């Protein structure tokens, strides 16, 4: 099988059985925003706004370079944004405005973005 055929057979996440480096027993306690991201993912799934398969495909659609560079929950958030844009649920311009608003809360010296204190 040539290389292009091999590529067609596997999406970026489909790595079962491929050669991989040594196993490392890495663990970390979730950061507050990571836990919030997980809860958000669950709620999106409950409402079928973004289900688990869509989320996985959304991460695959980020492409190998982004998948390689970003952490687990960073990928999820990028995938969520893209999926919500593609479904027309959130407009990119609304997202950009909201990001500025969230950042401004901190720049204005407010003690903690309201949602960031959830944990």
């Amino acid at each position, binding site marked *: 099988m040539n290389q292009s055929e091999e590529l067609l057979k596997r999406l970026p996440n489909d790595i079962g*059985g491929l050669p991989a480096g040594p196993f490392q027993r890495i663990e*970390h306690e979730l950061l507050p925003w990571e836990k919030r991201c997980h809860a958000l993912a669950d*709620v999106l799934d*409950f409402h079928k706004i973004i*289900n688990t*398969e869509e989320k996985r495909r959304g991460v695959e659609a980020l492409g190998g370079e982004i998948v*390689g560079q970003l952490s687990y929950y960073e990928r999820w958030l990028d995938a969520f944004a893209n999926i919500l844009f593609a479904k027309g649920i959130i407009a990119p311009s609304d997202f950009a405005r909201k*990001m500025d608003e969230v950042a401004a809360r901190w720049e204005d010296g407010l003690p903690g973005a309201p*949602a960031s204190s959830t944990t």
Partner: protein
Amino acid sequence: MEPHDHESTHGAHDHPHAEPGASERPGYYDMMETALRELLIERKLVDPAEFRRQIEVLDSRTPALGAKVVARAWVDPAFRERLLANGRAACEECGISSYDETELIVLENTDKVHNLIVCTLCSCYPRPVLGLPPDWYKLKAYRSRAVIEPRTLLAEFGTVIPDSVEVRVSDSTALVRYLVLPKRPEGTEHFTEEELASLVTRDAMIGVIPVTANQGST
């Protein structure tokens, strides 16, 4: 806690990960989570109370729940039968609800079969009974190698499976999750159900290590 290193097999990312304090500006992704959630709430697509409740659900799910189920299966043969027949229903019997639509298949380790669970595509895991998976479960080395060289991988956990024992690897999906029912260790005949539960670790229920009589749950 290990140093924060998500994806050492996939190259570095170098932004800082300090716990956000009250005066510290949150990171880009921290703000992105807030922005997306608030936009969804403003559009009345999700309810903030539901989101807060899910944070509490996540906090409440730990491997202690799975350990309770395992210990009960060891002492109660009828429960064991029900657990192997329908994992989800048997866990609900123990007061452990499934908060999603996933099916739970419980795989019993015996003298002839050792089970190992993985999610090659991503990170599916029996979260209602074990909580969230460890990082290594989500990383490339575990996902790639579990299905092609499980014995070598298990040996890296210090678990050497004799050639006479079959190793079965089950690959989780979005809808079907697995939990390993480990072998009850020898020398625990007089243990109470609670004492047995205290021996059962998360990693034993993933199938990467056995349960031993002198090991506390971590």
